[in-house]
């Protein structure tokens, strides 16, 4: 198709400042594909997912058009995690390096966790000594899971994390569920304790940690080794079952491309109670419980 032949009818009107950003004429979201001209109006700035070619703003991805004032970007619906400062993420240590750890956070590069941005046992504001550097592997070793916050970005786009809060740190007593990062929305809190006695950390990178609920006391910071030990608490069979059920609930939601938050997990969990955990992910049962959870969510939001 010739790029210059774009009928006015198939393009939403971006000329009007008051126009709703991604609504097109037929009321649907404006979907573009790579190489498609988004607009020829030079008043717009190009955002992510677009490039300019002879005055035309062209999409480089398949996705929906987002407009913020004069900035037009194309948001793909399935992509790797793109971090923002302040995001809560769950990651896995892939490498221990000089004064830093490399953390897999499902982004386009491994994130960096500097030794200076973790809390070490024995006082929050303590200087990092050479001996700390030598025993970095005793804090985080390869394969360890952790929760952290995105603190900054390096020039090349790699994220720098920090765990300087009691909320963040090494993860134990649970299991990891990986979902597409687009399904986890930014909310006030990404740490939830479900009524069934299970802690859930909804990492914005699509890594979700489901663990047995363990109360954290502020004193833990001062206990040496309490922060970084590798021993799980005793977990009973019933607790294991509950954790497995929560994990399967999350997987069920992600199979149906449903967004994931604590309420939605609880609704799916409750809807699944009639089925044994091992049957939850059979396609028909999976669909049934997700539909039930969606119905309940809609009902709750109407009240």
């Amino acid at each position, binding site marked *: *198709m010739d*790029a210059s032949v774009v009928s006015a009818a198939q393009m939403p009107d971006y000329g009007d400042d008051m126009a709703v950003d991604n609504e097109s004429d037929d009321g*649907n*979201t404006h*979907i573009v*594909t*790579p*190489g498609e001209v988004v607009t020829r109006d030079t008043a717009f700035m190009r955002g992510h*997912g677009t*490039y300019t*070619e002879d005055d035309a703003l*062209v999409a*480089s*991805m*398949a*996705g*929906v058009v987002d407009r913020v004032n004069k900035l037009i970007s194309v948001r*793909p*619906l*399935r*992509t*790797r995690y793109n971090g923002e400062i302040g995001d809560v993420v769950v990651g896995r240590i*892939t490498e221990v390096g000089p004064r830093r750890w*490399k953390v*897999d956070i499902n982004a*386009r*590069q*491994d994130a960096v966790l500097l030794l200076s941005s973790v809390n070490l046992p024995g006082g929050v504001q303590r200087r990092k000594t050479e001996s700390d550097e030598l025993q970095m592997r005793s804090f985080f070793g390869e394969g360890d899971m952790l929760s952290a916050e995105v603190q900054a970005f390096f020039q*090349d*786009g*790699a994220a720098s994390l920090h765990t300087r809060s009691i909320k963040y740190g090494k993860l134990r007593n649970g299991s990891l569920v990986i979902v597409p990062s*687009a*399904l986890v929305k930014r909310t006030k809190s990404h740490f939830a304790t479900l009524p069934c006695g299970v802690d859930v950390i909804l990492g914005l990178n699509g890594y979700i940690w489901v663990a047995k609920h363990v109360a954290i006391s502020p004193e833990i910071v001062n206990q040496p080794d309490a922060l970084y030990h590798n021993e799980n608490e005793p977990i009973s069979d019933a607790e294991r079952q509950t954790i497995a059920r929560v994990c399967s609930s999350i997987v069920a939601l992600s199979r*149906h*491309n*449903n*967004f994931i938050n604590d309420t939605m997990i609880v609704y799916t969990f409750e809807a699944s109670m009639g089925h044994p955990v091992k049957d939850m992910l059979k396609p028909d049962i999976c669909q049934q419980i997700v539909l039930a959870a969606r119905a309940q969510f809609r009902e709750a939001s109407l009240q």
Partner: protein
Amino acid sequence: MSRLEIISPEGLRVDGRRPLELRRVNSRTAVLSQADGSAYIEQGNTKCLAAVYGPREPTKRAALLHDRALINVEYSVASFSSGERKQKLRRDRRLMEIASTIKRTFENVILTTTFPRSEIDIYLQVLQIDGGALHTAINAATLALVDAGIPMTDYVCACSAGYVNNQAILDLNYLEESAEIPTLTVALLPKSGKITMLGLESRLHLDKLEPVIQLASDGCKQLKENIDATIRESTKSLAKTILQ
């Protein structure tokens, strides 16, 4: 030597197509749950599965590029893909050459500079061969890359064409390819018409080159409509569930 009749007096080919007709195309995206992007395409009886991982941390530190993403293509052909079962060689030269051709095809189209120090892996598996495995694999890779949300200036569409009985024919199948017909494979960017890959492995008279390229390019543009429809369909259904 008994020659197979490629075009019958009625103007039909061995599989009943007209000379300028493409085979039936059937494609889907997001067929694998683990990959960042995946696609499956059937062009006639040639079937290919593509999986794209990335952009992600490079597996080999030495290969890392500081200013752009590294593209890695692995192309393999299933041992059950053709009439005779083939024992797979560990490092087949021929397959590696095809993989590097596909890699070069996409290097110019993917906006690699947006992902410095990363790696994009494209895994292509041809499940059944009935001619045109290379262009089917390129189309599958395009679909999978778009599905993975990797920025590209345009689609890459590929198609083959040959020349026989004073006539150019489009999208050759296995019987036609093995009948010593010169076969040309073209990969192009349908919007600008720029050609990113052109492959010809046998002799073709220079005068005939132009019409054959033209025909293959027309085939690519037809395929683009098909690929675009698949992408639009899958994006629309994703938008419906995710943006509810």
